[in-house]
């Protein structure tokens, strides 16, 4: 930097420290910005840099550069810099701020970037009240791509894509971003300022500083919309362009504060304390002892239970399968549980595939079960045929429906399980009576494994008791009633 000391004089305004002395990232002309002469972006940059200097936050600042003429903002700001996709600055800023709450995150966006392609991101960041600062440059056009219409283009204004002037019947009305965002609950500060005169510029300086200071104070979302000249696209000299802001643009976009809750905004709640690393497994439910220690099985035996459970949604089909798998794991089996999901899941039916095996499980799909638990007639009809000869079929009903009785090669156990469950306490635990019957008939698992699994899955003491009684009811139904067993 040149030495600007002159005897008898004190420097009162000079290049802010938050700008690089020389723009080394810029390939050429490293003493100037890449902006056109008289462009408002340069003035807006300076207002930001001065505010960063005044607030003493250069090290903490992360500037988000958008896509648009200001895509190279990172050439100039000697702060942390992130260049992002078109319109997405608020999303990126959201995550930077949440990742590093001590950082001061400033998203800088043009009107194509913020109000067109990025309309969703700005709306939701504002609505969440992200404690970031957004500097929004409204120059009424797409500068970078050569002067197409922006959402903020004035009615009647010609651009390369509105060659006959913006027509409200075709392109709609200029979008009032500040007014829109001020209709939300969360934003703390929303103001529209201009760069059309000395007075407007000094007011803009105040607003920009305020929007950044809010973040330093830990307040919520702040946005400053800056009506900014674009002499090149407007085909005016810089002085005329500035005057257009003062005399024309403000008629459509009135200046003013649309939201100021800097005094009344509630303090943000403190972040939850971060646990010790040693505590994390327990938080994830992985601490030793939280889940069953697998017991080794009696060796030599090859066991391969392939179970299909089927019924209507709400009958506890998936839960039955889960308890079975969990108890099986506890008993030392290899297990898998696959819920019906996809084309089979139509019209409220539900089913799951459970495997309990003494060997590693290849396919978790059970296409040829050796146990079928059918909680209703459609399920029985659907899944009976592929049951393996010698397999077990448990059916919730007293009569084997017509057309199903022909499978003499399977063990058929048909009982009114829902009714039995009702008698035991609650008809909704029919799934457990069927499980009880399964255990009794096949000896698949020891009772205590199932009860342990139930205790882990069912938190309510009442339901645990209901389920336990239902299990017993199911067992009894097998030992006593033999009516339909083939």
């Amino acid at each position, binding site marked *: 930097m040149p030495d600007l000391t002159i005897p008898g004089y004190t420097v009162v305004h000079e290049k802010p420290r938050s700008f690089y002395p020389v723009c080394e990232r810029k390939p050429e002309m490293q003493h100037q910005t890449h902006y056109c002469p008289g462009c408002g972006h340069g003035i807006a940059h300076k207002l930001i840099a001065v505010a960063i200097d005044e607030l003493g936050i250069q*090290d903490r600042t992360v500037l988000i550069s958008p896509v648009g003429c200001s895509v190279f903002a990172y050439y100039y700001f000697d702060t942390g*810099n992130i*260049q992002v996709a078109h319109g997405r600055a608020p*999303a990126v800023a959201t995550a930077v701020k949440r990742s590093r709450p001590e950082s001061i995150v400033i998203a800088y966006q043009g009107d194509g970037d913020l109000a067109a392609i990025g309309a969703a991101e700005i709306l939701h960041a504002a609505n969440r009240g992200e404690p970031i600062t957004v500097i929004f440059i409204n120059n009424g056009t797409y500068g970078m791509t050569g002067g197409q219409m922006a959402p903020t283009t004035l009615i009647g204004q010609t651009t390369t894509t509105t060659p006959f002037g913006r027509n409200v019947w075709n392109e709609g009305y200029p979008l009032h971003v500040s007014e829109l965002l001020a209709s939300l609950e969360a934003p703390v500060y929303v103001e529209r300022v201009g760069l059309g005169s000395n007075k407007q510029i000094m007011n803009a300086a105040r607003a920009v500083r305020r929007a950044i200071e809010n973040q330093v104070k830990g307040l919520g979302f702040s946005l400053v919309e800056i009506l900014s000249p674009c002499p090149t696209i407007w085909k005016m000299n810089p002085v005329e362009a500035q005057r257009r802001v003062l005399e024309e643009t403000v008629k459509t976009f009135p200046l003013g504060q649309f939201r100021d809750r800097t005094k009344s905004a509630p303090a943000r709640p403190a972040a939850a304390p971060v646990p010790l690393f040693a505590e994390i497994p327990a938080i994830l439910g992985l601490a030793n002892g939280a889940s069953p220690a697998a017991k080794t099985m009696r060796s030599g035996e090859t066991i391969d239970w392939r179970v299909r459970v089927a019924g209507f949604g709400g009958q506890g089909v998936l839960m039955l399968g889960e308890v079975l798998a969990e108890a099986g794991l506890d008993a030392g089996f290899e297990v898998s549980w696959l819920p019906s999901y996809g*084309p089979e899941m139509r019209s409220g039916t539900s089913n799951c595939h459970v495997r309990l095996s003494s060997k590693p499980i290849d396919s978790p799909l059970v296409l040829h079960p050796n146990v079928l638990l059918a909680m209703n007639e459609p399920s029985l009809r659907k899944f009976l045929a592929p049951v393996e000869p010698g397999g077990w079929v448990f059916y919730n009903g007293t009569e084997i429906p017509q057309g199903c009785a022909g499978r003499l090669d399977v063990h058929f156990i048909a009982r009114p399980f829902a009714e039995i469950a009702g008698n035991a306490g609650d008809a909704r635990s029919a799934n457990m009576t069927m499980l009880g019957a399964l255990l009794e008939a096949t000896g698949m698992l020891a009772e205590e494994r199932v009860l342990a699994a139930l205790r882990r899955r069912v938190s309510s003491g009442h339901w645990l008791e209901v389920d336990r009684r239902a299990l017993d009811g199911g067992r009894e139904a097998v030992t006593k009633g033999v009516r339909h067993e083939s």
Partner: protein
Amino acid sequence: MSKQLIKGNEAIVKGAILAGCRAFYGYPITPASEIAEAAALYMPQVGGVFLQAESEVAAINMLYGAASAGVRAMTASSGPGISLMQEGISYLAGAELPCVIADIMRGGPGLGNIAPEQGDYNQVVKGGGHGCYRTLVLAPESVQEMASLTSLAFDLADKYRNPVVVLADGCIGQMMEPVEFPATVVEPQVPRWAVTGTADSRPNLITSLHLDPDDLEAHIRHLEAKYRRAEREEVRFESWRTEDAEIVLVGYGIVARILKAAVEQARSEGLAVGLLRPITLYPFPGDELRRLSRRACAFVVVELSTGQLVDDVRLAVEGRRPVEFHGRAGGNIPGCEEVLALVRDMIPREQMADA
């Protein structure tokens, strides 16, 4: 640590947190939503961030922000959401930002359905966004691998400063199996290049923009060199009874599980069948396929799609052996028998060719 019976989607989140992931940004979609739900439950408890974004477009850009700030971050989605994320993934790769994306594939195109499919292979493995970049892609076949490959994904993402995708299907995401988690917890580290709002990180810049053609070409070459390195160092696959196999089945994810059952059944019938299961879909185990093609007579690729992985197998085998394809789509999953029928059909043909 003892085994826990959990869903594939939940295993991803637990694996991620143990691997030091402290941020999840996502948008709900079946069959991936349990990932977001588990993250919503656990992230705040471990000092991490969970945020339901307004769209997948926002979610992937939030990942860009979190990764820029040096946080291990992830998202999860399914086909329609991954399509929306492609722009952001291209930016992440271009800006060399690490992150993990879980794709729990469902049926497509369009809204398709929510059933398991493997139709995202091309858009994920070939890099569905613009520009010369790749994502590293890991394909779990079990709930255990949902956890362990997610952990690996974070290490690879950091090692290569590149997005890594865990590509699973609805079946693996939805099913429950026992998982053994590592006894160690990774302590999150802040990389040197991150922009964290501190004096040390002030000179750092995250960008994918290189205006000058020479600069951009140099950058692309640099990315390319990383991908070549990954191709040398990161290829992972499982070879299942391939040593003496005449027919080699090829499949990943849930399909590989079915193919294992098919291999067992075929072997019990005296047929020399094996399975090559790619674990990394990119980098692709092409060398191993080429090696196997010296002995095997034919390959059979099975996919839950009309044929995407099969292109890579054909490229690797270079026409030296026939590569047959069997695909199911729309959520239908081929049974073991279906595959066996195909294999039994081929064996006499191959033997005839040998004679």
